């Protein structure tokens, strides 16, 4: 791997991002180490667990598998960009109310996956919730409280 770095500019959580990095650096590392957005977690580093989920141009992706160069000109939302100031997103409120978060390490990715699911499908069936979240692993909850959170947020109506 060459040591050449690249300047990459993107939109992140409504602001602008501008970093100097190796083009093949993992976007996850750029977020955590250069932008200090540590809400995005690393669970496996191979795209299996979804703890590093972010929204890249409106698509839910595993940031551990995305080279930094792909972020050039992109619009990124991380967990830090989900709430509006102190006002939690409906999915975040529902996760607290329904017990969707236990240890919390999968929670940022899971919240983004749930918000993304509801943005694409405002009234999913239980089966659609099951498959919609199946890219995000949780070892604590057995997922039942997470499903309940999605249903609760759905009833509240999720802002898009």
């Amino acid at each position, binding site marked *: 791997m060459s040591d050449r770095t690249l300047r990459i500019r993107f939109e992140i959580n409504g602001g602008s991002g501008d970093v100097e990095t190796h083009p093949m650096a993992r976007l996850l590392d750029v977020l955590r180490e250069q932008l200090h957005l540590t*809400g995005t977690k690393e669970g496996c580093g*191979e795209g299996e667990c979804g703890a590093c989920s972010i929204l890249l141009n409106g698509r839910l992706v595993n940031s551990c598998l995305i080279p930094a160069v792909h972020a050039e000109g992109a619009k990124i939302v991380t967990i*830090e960009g989900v709430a509006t100031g102190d006002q939690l997103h409906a999915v975040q409120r529902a996760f607290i109310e329904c017990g969707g978060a236990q240890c*919390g390490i999968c929670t940022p990715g899971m919240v983004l996956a749930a918000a993304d699911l509801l943005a694409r499908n405002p009234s999913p069936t239980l089966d659609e919730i099951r498959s919609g979240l199946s890219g995000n692993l949780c070892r*604590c*909850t*057995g*997922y*039942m409280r997470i499903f309940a959170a999605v249903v609760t947020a759905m009833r509240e109506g999720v802002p898009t």
Partner: protein
Amino acid sequence: MPDPAIGRAVPRRDGVAKVTGRARYIDDLTMPGMLHGVTVRSPVARGIIRDIRYGSGVPWDEITVVQASDIPGRNVVALILEDQPYLADERVNHPEEPILLLAHRDKQMLEEARRLVTFDIEPLDPVFTIDEALSGERVIWGDDNIFKSYLVGRGDVDRAFDEAAIIVEGAYETGAQEQLYIEPNGMMAVAGPDSGVTVWGSMQCPYYVHKSLAGLFGWSVERIRVVQMETGGGFGGKEEYPSVIAGHVALLAWKSGRPVKMIYDRAEDMAATTKRHPSRTRHRTAVSADGRLLALEIDFVIDGGAYCTLSPVVLSRGTIHASGPYFCPNIRIRGRAVATNAPPHGAFRGFGAPQSIFALERHMDRVALAIGVAPEELRRRNFIRPGQVSAVGQVMRDPVDMSAILSRALDMSSYHEKRGRFDRENVRGRTRRGIGLATFMHGAGFTGSGEDHLASIVTVEGTRDGRVRVLSASTEIGQGTNTIFAQIAADTLRLDVEDIEIAQPDTAFVPNSGPTVASRTCMVVGRLLENACRNLQHVLIDSGHLTSASGDFKPACVAYVEERGTLRASAQYQPREGAHWDDERYEGDAYGSYAWAAYVAEVTVDLDTYEIHVDDFVAVQEVGRVIHPVLATGQIEGGVAQAIGWALYEDVVWREGRMANSQMTNYIMPTSADLPTIRVHFEEVPYEGGPGGAKGIGELPMDGPAPAIANAVAHATGVDVRRVPLTPEALAQMLEVARV
């Protein structure tokens, strides 16, 4: 006064921080000048280290290297025995055993350096299986490869077998299981001659780490400080192993003079750290024609891996739970934990009980089949009742009613209707359906005199604004410690939950409330918290600031703190009144209380792909009073999900003592698409020894699902299931055997 908090789903303490990504885990921490640390591990299972070579390609003079000879104190991980070194010195006893530690600020260079280290190891013959270990042909540990053995029981077992008309035998096996907390293990340390050692990290038991570090450095405990960061799941996997990582990172910090952080990647965490003990259990049961258990003979063996670690206590719990929630006048249980050249197996939710209960509950179905009695009926005829004694001689004093719990589970699952319907329908098509059950119990807290020896302490202090801070070493690892502690303290002091603060576990400030394990946090530590709060009220009553415990705490606290500065009270564990335990004979009151349960699983088996799907799951249990309905339900659902994983998907593939599938890609845990709806019901019977009437809960749900599923698969297919995991490959093999 505010409404009682106990019994209500108050908002989770750490909820906002966790859903916004603000919660701080160890990998979210950095320090100026910080180095990264890595571990270089043994490539072989057993051998003598002859040479260590450092290949060229990295500037070795910039890299901090620690080996066994650098250790200032004792090269021993402090657990039960002192057989496990922090760093292998002359010998290695398992694959992935730590030999060298490296630190550098550049992670990429560090990876290269790790690859450039090679070891010249003279191989010795290893032992990989329980049978090899028991045969004693090659002795790899002690005199006989046996870490610990127990022989417990009562009655005249031999005579009962001599007189019995019906005897049913069987052997059952369970596989290893990875805890697979989604946050890998990690620690950060600073160390210096003046400052001592401070370690921050992901852990369940700060004082275990504390004790082990003191020995490693040969220092008094005052020079060691351990701080728990937000911890992304534990399940037992962060009970003992964090002591190893903390020691490693502290050694690197000590030698380099810089802060050092060490975060395991997933493959390293899976391959190198502890897993659930594999087990083999043999049952021999004498039973009357009408289904009364006359004698149980149980031989329970667990594979402990290369070092003793916690195997004796895992074995103890598995042994005591091996005869389940049944009464039998004649019982003999032999338990043995053996050594193999695999990485040490360790604590994992259930701690030996899931293994021995799997065997028993699968065996009960086979006994029922042998005598032509329905599985639920056989159990009903043998449930232990108040006043009867357990295998180790504990008289059941609490009002246990297993029959009612079972009836509720059968009703909720439509068991009888489905059992009959599946029997009729399982004749055509390429799928088969089945329904199965398991009934079981789980003792809460340390076994026997364990809690007496721990002598745990909880402290509470009043603040100048009339709030109360709880100081304990009991960790929040997702299960809800901080929330239930706030509820318990609030109700005792008649305060709002918002008025309770929970201090971060930091050995510089909190007392030792014991490890966060063994379903003890709510029942044992929660009770101490209740007592500490009462003691706090008494301080205010004695000083005249409060007239009685039902008085208004807040103004009294404010006035007291203003006048005297500090308002603190503690409570220490006292041996339970009337409880007796004989450590020598391993007999007596094994646990302060038991949680009781009946679980029912419904499955579909695909005869073409051999896949098993759990379609419905009913979990009925009595855990005393439920402190927080949402958290308690979450504990049961999460435990059931892990146990479904253990039963069906999670297959640790061993190759020469090494986990060959140490990735989430090829070690398969349940996703949201794999699990059935898990239906949870609590029968609430308040337990007077627990806070607000609560018992332990965390481990219970790990015990029942695997045998319930295995029994359902046996019902669906007629296959005599003897082991888990029931992967498609394993089931295919069992079906082949059944056809021959």
